[in-house]
């Protein structure tokens, strides 16, 4: 049996330790995905807690046709969508500049910040499904099968969303991208 399903059965019988174990297992990947969707650490933390609370209070709705992780991702994406849409409408670029703060005055840092802002704007300009697919595939390293499960679409559709999203990003960032690759990618 799936480890998550076994833990869920124990949670249903009142096992607090199983509950904590499930939360610890999924909180970091969920936070990472939520952060990439909303680009704000505080919002991502808030959404993480809401996702987990909603999952456990509505656990009767989990039919076990998909994995528990997929179901969590579905809840997280739905909760993040509304917040993301509000941000996109406001034109806000809530980039977390924790890394830039380390050395804000160097040219390299400024270039990095500018590049990140352009990348963020390009990403936010994509249609929602394409942006989500590219993010899940490239930044969260999900397979197309997993993406199809999370987004409730076919594998073919998830691949098509990915291709279209990447092509649009390439077109928008063509003047930034040099097309140079290192001879050995596996560093």
């Amino acid at each position, binding site marked *: 049996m799936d480890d998550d399903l076994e833990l869920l059965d124990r949670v249903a019988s009142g096992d607090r330790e199983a509950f904590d174990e499930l939360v610890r297992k999924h909180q970091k990947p969920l936070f990472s995905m939520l952060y990439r969707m909303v680009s704000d650490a505080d919002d991502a933390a808030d959404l993480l807690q809401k996702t987990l*609370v909603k999952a456990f*209070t509505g656990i009767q709705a989990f039919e076990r046709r998909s994995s528990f992780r997929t179901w969590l991702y579905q809840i997280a994406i739905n909760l993040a969508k509304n917040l993301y849409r509000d941000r996109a409408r406001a034109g806000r670029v809530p980039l977390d500049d924790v890394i830039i703060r380390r050395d804000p005055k160097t040219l390299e840092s400024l270039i990095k910040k500018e590049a990140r802002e352009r990348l963020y704007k390009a990403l936010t300009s994509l249609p929602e499904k394409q942006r989500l697919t590219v993010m899940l595939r490239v930044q969260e390293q999900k397979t197309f099968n997993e993406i199809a499960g999370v987004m409730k679409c076919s594998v073919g559709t998830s691949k098509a969303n990915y291709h279209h999203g990447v092509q649009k990003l390439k077109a928008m960032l063509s003047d930034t991208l040099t097309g140079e690759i290192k001879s050995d990618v596996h560093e």
Partner: protein
Amino acid sequence: MCTNNDIQELLPAYLEQALDQNERARVEGHLSSCGDCRTELELLRLLAAEPVPDPGEAFWAAMPGKVFRQVRSEEQQKRSWWGSRVPLILTLPRWTWAAVAVLIVASASWLLVRPVPAPIARVATPERSAVRTTLTPADAMELADLSDTEVDAVDLWATGELALLQDDYLDIMQNNADLSVEDRLTELNTEELESLSRMLDSQNEES
């Protein structure tokens, strides 16, 4: 623009170093001659390099407890919402409901099968202290000594007795159609003959 979707789909895995040797060689061979795919790989590297801040160990350690408390709180709120709207009786244990159901069924069954009491005739308060309900020959009385109520009671009784006699007479007449009138009359006892006589007299008077 490159149209080799197979290679483009492998680029993220190539970046993650998740390809086997053969697939990696195939991708690298394609990259050496395709600028579009090299551009795409650079884009993917930029995307993947976007850092995710770490909220810290205290945040991760506290999250299970925070989630658990909020889940509990919401469940209790849900229960109290229902409790304030549903009568307390509905929260009773099952055995109580079973007992109530048995009581209802028993009551309904008793109401359906209980004996219905015969209607009790209302009797007006007699003017005299006592009213005779039965008459025997030894108790013959003067009609003038009886009250109106007692006279009515006697009349009612007599009418009933005569009706019974009439029914019996008719039965006899039907069952003994071959008997002559004389034969039938001889079957009557003295009392029946006197009653018959009185009846015939009263009918003659009416006619």
